[in-house]
């Protein structure tokens, strides 16, 4: 695995905007960075693919364990919701996607940092934008032949929606896509997902999450025209929905939600110690605990996003930390050796879509903690 410097396409802003990627420079800081790319080997990709499948297998076993052992309180899931989550799992409700964030440098075994199982973003850039960059930067495979990109995310998404259509045949009407009003990254991510659902033959609508209504007489969620919302993809995390005013209405189960309720178990960082307890010998897991560890470790809020409120701790001293709005409870994870490529620290986002490990995105930063503005850098393999 190498980091290779390359000249950006002269008009790259116009190109990526034409692909729907209009949030490439948020707050004046570059987020999409095609002045470099990561060059992986085929064995690197094989290793990442193998690790992703194995992590997915372990995660599914961990969900079963959490349910069997009734660990919902540990996961901050209210008791009133436990049966709802359990039923979602027992019905084997389908999942569209998730992203494992892995520490990997091409030399050591990939290690799981966390699993974004509920509301992962950086999807459009991974599935579409880096693919078109690859076709421009390596036309006909030059200069290295054969060169390729680990990326069938788009195709797998369309397959996932077809599967969901079959799995939700009892629910009438369009699939609603909903996100927080006013956030362009979230809006374009759900718009991309909506695009793939439409390519799978589904009728779709968009509604801001704030505009979802609950009709008291009909006892169901409705859109602004009072049409029932029977199926909905939400780019809005379960842990927030369970703290908001419509939470009790969720338990009526009148809407089929994506990601499925059982995914809230995996999107919670409490899954990290559970995974380690279940699979301590796994080469893909870092030691993790609900208590501080003896050696260098990372403290992460159980429920947090985008690298916020993370602390790196060594010998009882905080060596690095990030700000954010989240508090405890926390989990503690062994500090992984941070890959370093000319001062850049990449994290591999490995996508699991419709049950397939189907591609990666690389985000890098010059600090050891990957955050909301860490840059997305494309990749190839050969």
């Amino acid at each position, binding site marked *: 695995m190498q980091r290779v410097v390359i000249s950006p396409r002269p008009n790259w802003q116009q190109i990526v905007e034409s692909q729907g990627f209009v949030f490439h420079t948020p707050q004046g800081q570059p987020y999409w960075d095609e002045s470099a790319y990561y060059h992986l080997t085929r064995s690197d990709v094989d290793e990442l693919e193998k690790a992703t499948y194995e992590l997915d297998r372990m995660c599914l076993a961990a969900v079963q364990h959490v349910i069997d052992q009734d660990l919902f309180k540990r996961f901050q899931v209210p*008791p009133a919701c436990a049966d709802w989550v359990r039923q979602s799992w027992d019905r084997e409700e389908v999942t569209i996607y998730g992203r494992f964030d892995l520490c990997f440098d091409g030399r050591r075994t990939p290690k799981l940092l966390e699993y974004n199982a509920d*509301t992962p973003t950086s999807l459009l850039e991974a599935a579409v934008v880096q693919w078109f960059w690859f076709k421009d930067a390596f036309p006909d495979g030059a200069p290295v032949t054969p060169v390729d990109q680990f990326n069938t995310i788009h195709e797998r998404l369309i397959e996932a929606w077809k599967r969901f259509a079959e799995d939700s045949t009892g629910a009438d009407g369009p699939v609603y896509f909903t996100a927080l009003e006013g956030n362009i990254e979230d809006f374009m991510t759900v718009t991309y997902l909506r695009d793939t659902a439409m390519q799978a033959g589904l009728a779709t609508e968009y509604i801001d999450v704030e505009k979802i209504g609950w009709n008291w*007489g*009909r006892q169901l969620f*409705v859109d602004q025209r009072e049409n029932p919302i029977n199926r909905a993809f939400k780019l809005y995390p379960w842990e927030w929905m369970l703290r*908001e005013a419509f939470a009790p209405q969720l338990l009526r189960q009148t809407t089929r939600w994506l990601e499925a309720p059982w995914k809230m178990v995996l999107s919670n960082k409490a899954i990290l110690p559970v995974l380690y307890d279940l699979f301590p010998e796994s080469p893909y897991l870092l030691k993790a605990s609900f208590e501080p560890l003896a050696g260098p470790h990372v403290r992460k809020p159980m429920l947090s*996003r985008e690298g916020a409120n993370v602390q790196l701790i060594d010998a009882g001293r905080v060596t690095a930390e990030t700000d954010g*709005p*989240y508090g405890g*409870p926390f989990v503690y994870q062994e500090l992984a050796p941070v890959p370093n490529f000319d001062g850049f620290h990449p994290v591999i986002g490995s996508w699991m879509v419709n049950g397939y490990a189907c591609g990666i995105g690389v985000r890098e930063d010059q600090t050891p903690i990957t955050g909301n503005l860490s840059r997305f850098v494309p990749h190839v393999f050969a």
Partner: protein
Amino acid sequence: MSKSSTAISLVLLTAASAGFIGYKAVNAPADPAFPNFDDNSGADFGDGPAATPTNPSTQPSGGHSNGSTGYYNYHTNHFYSSGYSGSSSHGDDPHGSSSSHMSGTSRGGFGSTGHAIGHAGS
């Protein structure tokens, strides 16, 4: 990887993005806002800001609704139907009001945490 020539059509995506050229992203507020279900925070299931009735003409008369759609008390394991009960009493009926019905629609019951934090993706 093989991709069919028609795989990435992105019609909707490009149409939507065209409306966002020049859009300035909303900056996330700095105030810590995210509650936890721990023993001390006081945060409870469904205990977010009140939903807003958008069709008040269809709300039942009477009662002193605070606009909330009800919440679950994590500590007592009870649902609280706080408002829209249709009764003439104050709305905090811990057992709900089975005799009351309303036909209106409340909105705004999702989104409050996201507005405080600013970005829902991960």
